[in-house]
């Protein structure tokens, strides 16, 4: 049970970092919407999932936050990528890419067996 959550948390962190890289500073709601849109609405993020992940990234120093005003004049906390976060994103993207490549190799229907 815990392990599943950890995996999810791990990929969520990567998504958050990538989103912030692409969009610049963004508030929690914006991040959630962006991730959902990018996933083609296949993912749904609720408050209990997203905010602990943001907190964790902030505690680890990958992102930083400051209060600002949203496009609709709502007071909101804006998150942005730090230098450490950029480095982490680079490294984790590579790792993830490698993992998916390997998995893809495994899952590819094998030709030589036939």
């Amino acid at each position, binding site marked *: 049970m815990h392990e599943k959550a950890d995996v999810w948390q791990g990929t969520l962190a990567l998504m958050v970092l990538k989103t912030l890289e692409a969009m610049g500073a963004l*508030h*929690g*709601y*914006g991040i*959630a919407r962006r991730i959902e849109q990018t996933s083609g609405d296949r993912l*749904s993020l*609720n*408050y*209990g*999932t997203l*905010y*602990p992940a943001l*907190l*964790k990234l902030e*505690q*680890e*120093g990958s992102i930083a936050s400051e*209060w600002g005003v*949203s496009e*609709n004049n*709502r*007071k*909101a*906390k804006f998150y942005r990528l730090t230098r*450490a976060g950029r480095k982490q994103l680079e490294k984790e993207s590579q790792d993830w890419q490698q993992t998916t490549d390997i998995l893809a190799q495994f899952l590819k229907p094998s030709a030589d067996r036939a």
Partner: protein
Amino acid sequence: MKRTRSWILRLTGILPNARRERERADELNGHLQMHIDENLRSGMTPAQARREALLKLGGVEAGRQAYRERATLPFVENLLKDVRFSLRQLGKNLGFTTTAILMLALGLCASVSIFAFVDAALLKPLPYRDSNRLVGVFETVPMFPQSNLSYPDYLDWKKENKVFRSLDVYERSGFTMATPSGPEPARGARVSDGFFSTLGVTPVLGRDFYTGEDLSSAPRTVLLSYSAWQQRYGGRRDVLGKTVTLNSLPNVIIGVLPKDFHFAPAEPADFWATLHPASECDLRRSCHSLYGVARLKDGVTMETALANVVSIAKQLERQYPGSNRDQGAALAPLSEVISGRIRPILLVLLGGAALLLLIAGVNVAGLLLVRSESRKREIAVRTALGASPGRLLSQFVTEGVVLAAAGSALGLTLAYWTMQLLVKLIPEQMLQGMPFLIGLGWNVRVLGFAAAISVLAALLFSLTPALHLSLSETHDGLAEGSRGSAGTTWRRLGSKLVMVELATAMVLLVGAGLLGKSLYRLLQVDIGLQPDHLVTIQVAAPDASYGKPEQAVALEREVLRRIANLPGVQSAGISSDIPMQGWGDTTWVRILGRPWHGEHLEMPERDVSADYFTTLGAKLVRGRYFAEDEDATKPRVAIINQAFGKKYFPGEDPMGKQLSGLSTPPVPIQIVGIVEDIKEGSLDSANQPALYFPFHQAPGNFFNVVVRTTQGDQSLLAALASTIRGINPGIVTFGAATMNELVARSAYPHRSTAWLVGGFAVLALLLSVAGLYGVVAYSVSQRTREIGVRMALGAQPAAVYQLILKEAGWLAAAGILAGLLCAVGAGRLLSGLLFGVRSWDIPTLAAVAVVLGLAALLASFLPARRAASVNPVDALRAE
């Protein structure tokens, strides 16, 4: 790095922070509002927009919880919560909390303070290099299994042995030191040149003795103890090369010994001088004054070493039959020589303290059981509300740890004071002979011991209620009136614990009883003199003025004349040794008129003035005391004690018989009197044959004065010293004491042991009786309804009393009986410390059983009375 940073942030997140909470709420609110805004924009009605947004957001509480768990460290937070809760719980039940903490503190204090002594005396490594390779070296004679070596014997042993890397000797020795304000007694020792290198001790300042520096031809040099360096010379480094005049001879200070150095068998010693064998005793093979210390060669065992020295002693016996007849050899580990005598006492005390700790622990465990029993409902409610077993367990553990921590903190504080107090209670003279106890206090081993006990206590305190809880079914707790069955479980366990307590208390009480009775017997011992109004002082006169026999006799006459003129003096006498200091200082004699083949009878010799015996208040059995004019010009005479007569003249009249020294031709000494045995050695030693000569026929310039007074012993002691020194400023006096002080000093080991074990026993009695009271009172409270029913059905108060007292009586009887059996076993371990009492002394066992029985009766009578006064109507309604 990343991880550390986040841990620190989470740790600080535990602290409540209003601003952070508000921001968190703001952020959530903003999130919700933005979603609503967007929904509105996409054409929903306000109500729809809000509903949809809330749904999407998910469970707000669950979200908040997930956020909190990330923001802080949940287990630390829970722990803090548990601690807060424990403190509140413990605070709510102050009676229980105080009792539990006090009991643990008491047990911990007793065992840790005694352990500190055990550590200082027995565990702490000796301040010598490889101290387990060091041995004490002795000659043996029938009278003393560990006797001194003579200087010539030492030289032969040193030369002939093949088992020691080095062999050296030492002798405790008082000096007269010249100071600007006149001569003063100084404490010191004489050692052979290699003494410190054998021990592996290097001076912190200056140098050790050179080889050959202990010979009479070498210039005299001396090493200072660290404390003498600090106190007498202010710790100045230029002390090296200075001269100190000891016994009228100049000694050059060549070094200072390390601060932690001690050597109990030769202490107290400020000045460590070299042997410089010159006296008549040093040169005579039959004069034994030195103790040996040796370092075994690598690979040599004690047995091999002993065999070697025994063969050397045999060889010397053949070579010098006159002086070395019956002189054997003995070895002992140096640690035994240093602290072997107090080892049994300390072990008994440690055992006593451990038993007390056991009782205290059992008692607290019992209290915790009662408490967890009465908290059953609370636990059941918490379980019903969803508390997991782990969460409940952690609550118990926290409570146990909090209790144990508080008890330990208090106990350790008390232990610190107790240690200091106990050291202060040791008489100065005794403490000086046990330098390893100086500076006793906390160290790694003592703290480790204390920590081990604290951890055990924490385990006991947290696991007892947890175990109890897991044994009983929690859902029972919610049902009203369910006390019956669960109460019985506890009563059974609690009863067993109380039996253990009573049995342990019994053991301690019997131990205290036996030691107390020994002490009483010891103080009743007939020492052969009247100690009240008797004072003594030691006198050392310089050889230069008083070394010749006639000079010593003249000094003795002058001392006695001047003292007789002091106010309050009834009579005064002089002796070479005072009573209760040991059966040493012996001489060899033979009985004339019997066949003789060189064997010698060894016994203590005392050279006493004519009025010595009357001053002591000794009792003359036959014959007469010495006459004032019985000096070297008159025939030699002697007085013997009764033990002498019994041993060497059984069935004969010793009066008029003649003794002689071992010289040829013999010089006859006629026995002119028999006195009742005077206790020359310690109070607990057996009487031995002793021989008294007239001081004028064997004078010396180092003697003791005893004075019988009619008033003010203490004021006379001061007057004595100044009167004697008034004769000649070169004379020093020391060791002034009343005879009763000497008696008390001799009884001190027995007295201190008896008092300490007695203290433990009284505490044990109180604790175990309190435990019994607890069990019975709890049982009564659980059976209130039953008792109410019985009384409603016509039971008389007497029947209720019987019901309760019978239960308590069984417990007490079983505990006492078990205790009796254990006490008889434990008594055997004690037998080495007992005097005049057997370890299975029936009166003591019976008396202790009665005392414990009565105390138990009292403890159960109170709850029984409460039970008998129950109003049946109230009791039935209460349920």
